[in-house]
């Protein structure tokens, strides 16, 4: 599997993929963080979905990662696109047959790809966290936010937890992308369906169906990224998302193993 992982890393590190993806992730995080601090007194809100986050709230130990947690779902969408594209492109380019000639074990191919993309997702999360936390420190004084508690033990613990949750959620979104890529075998179709589902369909369903926000996979991963919400506990969201991902992953893996490679 190590050979698959190294081969996959060669594809992922190509400048046309790695640089724009990292730039997009850092740009989105920087934008979310900047808006949080620059619009701190805005009556139309400075946080997700127009909520107002005060300087007092941001001065708490977990205030240091508030903006990063807000951006985590967007990182997940980026991961979904990367995982889906990297998986489905093997079918559209016809390169899967080359891979299987050099590594006939389909499960090793799948697992190696997954681990390589998860490492890539980790890099996305890590660089975005660095940008977000760095910008938070830089913008805090102008926004009259105290950073004293950010460097406390609780503050450091909040950073570790936020990183772990964001990584978990990002890999979760990525796994959904990989499942779509394997099932649909077309990057454009897999990405379109994935993004439309996460950003439009789930929001529409949660608006019209009672408690839908407690069952929809993307929303569960969003809750995991935020470390839990008032209406949905962290452990519950993690469990529900895990069930979706497990079922999808088993289905996709069985299909990948059994399906003829005819293109």
């Amino acid at each position, binding site marked *: 599997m190590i050979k698959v992982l*190294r081969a996959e890393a060669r594809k992922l590190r190509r400048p046309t993929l790695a640089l724009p993806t990292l730039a997009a992730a850092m740009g989105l995080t920087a934008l979310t963080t900047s808006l949080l601090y620059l619009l701190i007194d805005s009556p139309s809100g400075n946080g997700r979905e127009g909520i107002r986050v005060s300087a007092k709230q941001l001065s708490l130990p977990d205030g240091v990662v508030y903006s990063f947690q807000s951006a985590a779902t967007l990182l997940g969408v980026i991961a979904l696109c990367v995982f889906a594209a990297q998986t489905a492109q093997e079918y559209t380019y016809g390169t899967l047959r080359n891979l299987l000639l050099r590594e006939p074990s389909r499960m090793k191919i799948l697992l190696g790809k997954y681990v390589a993309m998860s490492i890539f997702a980790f890099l996305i999360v890590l660089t975005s966290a660095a940008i977000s936390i760095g910008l938070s420190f830089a913008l805090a004084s102008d926004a009259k936010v105290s950073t004293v508690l950010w460097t406390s033990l609780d503050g450091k613990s909040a950073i570790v937890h936020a990183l772990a949750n964001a990584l978990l959620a990002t890999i979760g979104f990525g796994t959904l992308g990989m499942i779509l890529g394997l099932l649909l075998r077309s990057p454009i179709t897999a990405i379109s369906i994935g993004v439309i589902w996460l950003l439009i369909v789930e929001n529409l369903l949660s608006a019209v169906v009672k408690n839908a926000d407690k069952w929809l996979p993307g929303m569960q991963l969003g809750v995991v990224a935020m470390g839990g919400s008032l209406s949905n506990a962290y452990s519950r969201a993690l469990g529900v998302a895990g069930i979706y991902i497990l079922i999808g992953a088993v289905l996709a893996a069985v299909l990948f193993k059994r399906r*003829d490679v*005819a293109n």
Partner: protein
Amino acid sequence: MVHEIAITVSNLTKKYDEQVAVSNATFEVPLGAICGFVGPNGSGKTTTIRMLLGLIKPTFGSATVLGHEIDRPEKYLSQVGAMIEGPAFYPALSGEENLHVLATLGGFPGSRVKELIDTVGLTGRGNSKFKNYSLGMKQRLGIAAALLPNPQLLILDEPTNGLDPAGIHEIRTLLRELAENGTTVFVSSHLLSELEMISEYLVMLREGNVIFSGLISDLLEAQQSQILVKPEFETDSDRLVAVIRSAGHTVEVKDGLLYVLVPEHFSSEINRLAFAAGITLQSLTPMLPTLEETFFDMTGGQA
């Protein structure tokens, strides 16, 4: 394990719903030979190759590659190189980087990449992106990828597609060199004249069925040979036709030339018949049908 046969195929069949792609295919490819694999488009060549490489599961039947059953491709693929249905690579990666991906995956040394780039004539272009390659360059890269494992068996599907005459000549020479060094080459191509020049063995498919497998020389010898006869004076043509027909032979006249459908050793008899009738011959040329003519004859004229 010592084996004299590189590929054995026995009643191999692939069905997609009601459509039969390959039907009870049975043939063998001897070790160390160059074996041509021919058939019209859609005759099942690529499906057969994919089954041999473990990419497609047969509906029924069996096959072995280098002595191993095809349901265990991990046993033999490390000794097999293949290019199926044209070269497939990542467009955004360079030719060298594409080969490095496959070399890493197969556990081959990175130095092999540079070596193969030179072998297939891509020296100086290895760092260009695959998407910027011409069709011929893509084909060369595909052949380089197939050669990565220094294969005991090389399976190539239309390797000369997109190559210019010089490129075709280079590939022909390369395949001959590989065969001389003990590599078995199983190659499908529509360029039958090329196959005739390099292959000893042939497997011919039509509509999913194997209609010939064996030595090309046996196939050609089994075909109706003919002797091309040209009288010195064109005015003697009709009389010469009558003389040969009266001796019980079949004669066809095309563009003033006489084609007598007899084996090669009948040349002397035709010469004697003409001499006895007072006709001088300008030329008397025994002709065997080409592989292309035989192919069209056996596949019912399908391209």
